Each structure stands twice: as C-alpha cells, then as structure tokens.
C-alpha cells in the first residue's frame, strides 16, 4: 500500500503538516530534535493507534492545545481509504478516536487498515533484551494482522489484572478465580494459537533471510516457547494445555499471590547453529539476527495481507554498518513505500525516490 497524503495537526512539534510522500523510499534528513522521530511516530500511530516510543497519549498532543489529529489518504488493494486518528486532551485524561472514510469506528475495526512495520534503534535489543520485548514484537505484528488477536490480547490483560487482584486479596475468592481463569483460557488460546502459527511462518522467512546475510555459513533457528505446553497447535489442545498448567501451578500461584501461567510469560527461542544466541552470539551475530527477524516480519505481514505494509525505519540504518544496512533493504526487497530517517546522509546506494529535509518541524523536498 501507499500513503499518498499525510496531514498532521498539533502532533508533537508539528503545528500543521501536509506531506505528499512518493511511492518507494522517502528519506528524511535532519539534525536531532527537528521532528524526524516525531514524523515516524505519527505515521506509526496513524496505522496502529500506538506510539513506538511507548509515550503517553498526552505527550503526542502539542503543548497548550487540546486536540491532535493525524490524517492519511492511503491507496490500498481494496481501494482508497481516508483514515484519521485523533487524540483529545481533556482535564480528565486523553481520548483517542478513529475514523475510516469519515465514519467513526472502534479501534478493533480501525487497526489493520494501514499496516506498518517499524524498525527503531530499540529493536536492536530484540535478541538480548527481556522476553517482554519479543512478546511486544509478536503482538505488534499480530494485532495488525487479525482483529481477533487484538481483542483477545485486551481481554487477556484485563482478566490477568483481575486474577492478580483476586490472588492478592486477604481471602481468595475461589469462584471469582475460576471465572477469570476461564476468561484467561479462552483469550489465551486465541493468543497462543496465533503466535504458534505466526512464528512457524516467521521462522522460515528468518532462516532464509539470515542465510543470505551470513552467506549460508550459519543457521538461525526461531521457535515459539509457549509458557504452557500443548500437544498440538489446535484450539482444544492449547486450551487443555493452559488448563493443565493452571492446575499444576495453582498452589504456587496462591502462595506467591501472582499469576504465573499463560501467554504473558511466553518467549521466542533464538538459536544460532543450535546455540542460544543471546548467550553465545557476538554483537554482530545478534544484530544480523535482528535484521533477519525484521525482514521476516515484513515478509509474513506482506504475504498474509497480500499487500506490502509501509516500512518505517527511524534512525536505524545509521546504527548499522553500510553492509548490513544495504543487506537489510535488499532483504526487504520489493517494498512499495518506505519512510527512512537519518541525521546524516546515508552512505551507500539507497536510491531514495525522494529526499526531504526536516528542520524545525518543516519538511521540504530536496530538489532532484
């Protein structure tokens, strides 16, 4: 898909912005604090309703105003779509609303219309960082891919918070505990199944991409490590696995007063030539694996939707050496549209369709 037009109003340091990006690679060059990351954050929010910086919504709204609006015109396989994400700042907190072609829609309906794959410097910790980073990586892709995944995730988080509150109470209400565990099993099964299927596809793509990056000298294995084991990737087997694990850990959970079972404790296992990558890999090997994972994420997202998502790279190519940066873009291959920011002109043949300068929240095309 292509974003043909982007309009921002009161988003971060942008009072107003009207931008007509080109198909292909759009390269944004600017010094720090001029609005590069803010632009990519806005693009990511337009697609997902969420900031990749994990910022609070009120931080997105430009200081001193009450309403921030991100608006886009996208050309997709199923036609042209006008989409908008607004954040209204009130005394009682902030409220986000979404519209598609002028109709107000709920978030679950909005999500997945404009699909994005983001790659930011913090993603370089994907191999060595905590499991929550890898779950976040899976969630970001799957929530855009399937609206029932996002719904299940939201239900799971609420039921988990309720279960933890029941476990922390002075006397544990067994009846309530059972109700929340049933909800956890139901939403958890959707989450686990989706992750299982996704990681199977991801593993194939990641091994393929990694093989190209490492000239087939090493083999990258990606596997899904579900917290509650199951015999087969089917709804019944996964639900039975969750139920059995909950039963087995019931006493421990009561004693420790915290929920220990379920997909909130899942992880990805990353191995290089059958050795754990986080423990045994060099920094270079770990970075190469991250690139392979991001290329794989892009490939799976593209295949599943039968449409190329937008590629958003915030200040990440400059973090890589020229060879890896080139390899990454070659790995992604035929992206339809990419937004790439950098503080410095990037070495190597990037072939941008257009280069833009960003200065003090003003964006100007560099004359070709």
């Amino acid at each position, binding site marked *: 898909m292509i974003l043909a037009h982007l309009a921002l109003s009161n988003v971060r340091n942008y009072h107003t912005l009207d931008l007509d990006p080109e198909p292909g690679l759009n390269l944004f060059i600017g010094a720090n604090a001029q609005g590069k990351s803010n632009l990519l954050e806005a693009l990511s929010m337009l697609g997902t309703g969420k900031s990749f910086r994990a910022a609070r919504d009120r931080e997105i709204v430009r200081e001193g105003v009450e309403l921030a609006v991100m608006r886009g015109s996208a050309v997709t396989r199923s036609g042209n779509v006008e989409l908008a994400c607004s954040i209204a700042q009130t*005394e*009682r907190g902030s409220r986000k609303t979404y519209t598609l072609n002028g109709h107000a*829609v709920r978030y679950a*309906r909005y999500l997945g219309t404009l699909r994005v794959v983001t790659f930011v410097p913090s993603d370089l910790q994907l191999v060595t960082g905590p499991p929550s980073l890898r779950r976040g990586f899976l969630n970001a892709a799957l929530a855009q891919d399937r609206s029932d995944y996002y719904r299940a995730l939201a239900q799971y988080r609420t039921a988990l*918070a309720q279960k933890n*509150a029941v476990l922390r109470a002075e006397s544990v209400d067994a*009846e309530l505990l059972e*109700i*929340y565990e049933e909800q956890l099993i139901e939403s958890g099964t959707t989450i686990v199944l989706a992750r299982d299927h996704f990681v199977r596809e991801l593993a194939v793509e990641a091994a393929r991409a990694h093989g190209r990056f490492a000239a087939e000298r090493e083999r990258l294995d990606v596997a899904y490590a579900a917290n509650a084991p199951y015999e087969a990737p089917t709804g019944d087997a996964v639900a039975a696995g969750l139920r059995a694990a909950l039963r087995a850990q019931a006493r421990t959970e009561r004693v420790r007063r915290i929920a220990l079972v379920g997909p909130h404790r899942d992880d990805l296992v990353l191995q290089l030539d059958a050795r754990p990558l986080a423990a045994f890999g060099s920094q270079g090997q770990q970075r190469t694996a991250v690139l392979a994972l991001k290329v794989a994420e892009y490939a799976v997202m593209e295949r599943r939707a039968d449409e190329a998502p937008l590629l958003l790279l915030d200040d990440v190519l400059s973090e890589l050496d020229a060879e890896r940066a080139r390899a990454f873009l070659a790995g992604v291959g035929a992206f339809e549209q990419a937004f790439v920011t950098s503080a410095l002109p990037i070495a190597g043949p990037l072939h941008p369709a257009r280069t833009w300068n960003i200065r003090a929240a003003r964006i100007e095309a560099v004359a070709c």
Partner: protein
Amino acid sequence: MPAPGSIVGPVAALINEFSKLPTIGPKTAARLVFYLLNRPRHESQMLADAIMEAKDRVRFCSICFALTEADPCTLCTDEQRDPAMLCVVAEAKDIFAIERTGAFRGRYHVLGGLISPMDGVGPAELHVKELVERVGSTATAEILIATNPNAEGEATALYLARLLQPLGSLVTRLAYGLPIGGDLDYADETTLARALEGRRSM
C-alpha cells in the same frame, strides 16, 4: 492577603467542590463557578435548594436499591409488575434506560456496581447477598442479568449465574446485537461476531 489575580477563599472552595464531581476537572469547575457568580442570586439559591431537596427526599429502596422517595419504591410496590421477573442492573440509572423501552414489566435489583477486584470491588461490596436472599424468599421464574457487555459486566454476570442457577430460577442475559441504524460495513468484528452468535430465525 492573596496575591493580586489569584482566586480568593470562597471561590476557590467552590471550585474545589465542583471538581470533586465526576467528569468535572478544575477548568470546567472554574467555568461553572464564574458562570454562577455572574448570574442573579436566586438562580444559585434554586440550584442549592434542588440539591438539598433531592438529597433529603431521595434514598435507596431497601428492597431493590433503586433511587426513591418512598421506601419501598413504586417499582417494588406496583401490583401491575410481575414479581416473578427480576432484572439485575449495575447502577440505579440503568433502570431508567430499561424503563424508557417500556418492554420490561418485572421488578429490578440494583447491584451498585460491577465486580472488579483490581478496583477493589468484590461481591461483598455490592448488593449480591441481598439479591440471593430476595431470590430465595420470593418465587422468581426468571432472572435477567442486564449488565454491560464489557469485561466487568461479563464477569459479574457469570458470577451471578453460578450463584443463582442452583436456586432453580431461569437465569438469562441481554442479547448482543448491532446498533439499529448502524452500518454493517463499519461494525467492528466483535460486535458482528456476537450478533451472528445471537441470530434468530424469522
């Protein structure tokens, strides 16, 4: 002496009182206060009187916990209403919503909230015990649980169903559907999926 331009005692106190109300923040509270101060005295008097009148004369019904002037309330004493049909709602205001439809002619029970342990609300904080006693002491054919279709509403409904089903009454739940006049194309999949599950023959 307060600094010039700062807000003086009684005004600050009134703004503070208004901002304790739900959905009213300090800015809105200030706007309301300055509006009142600019209006004739009798308007403020009427507002104050209306608040005190409501506060003094309205209480919670000792049977159903609806807001009422007389205890028990007219909903509980109305002979035209079917005492064997009981509708359970979260808040007293939900009764107004159901009454506006004119489609329900039974009695009500207000829980006073929804179960949400993470917000410190368990069954003991709600009128659950009173509900069980009521169902146990009067012949109730059907208990309709009309809580919101969100996570707390669902959990509360499940909890009540487990509690009430052994007492022998039929326990039902409001159906889920599409909003009338809504557009199928823009309905989110949750709503649509639930509406499909709840489809009926015609």
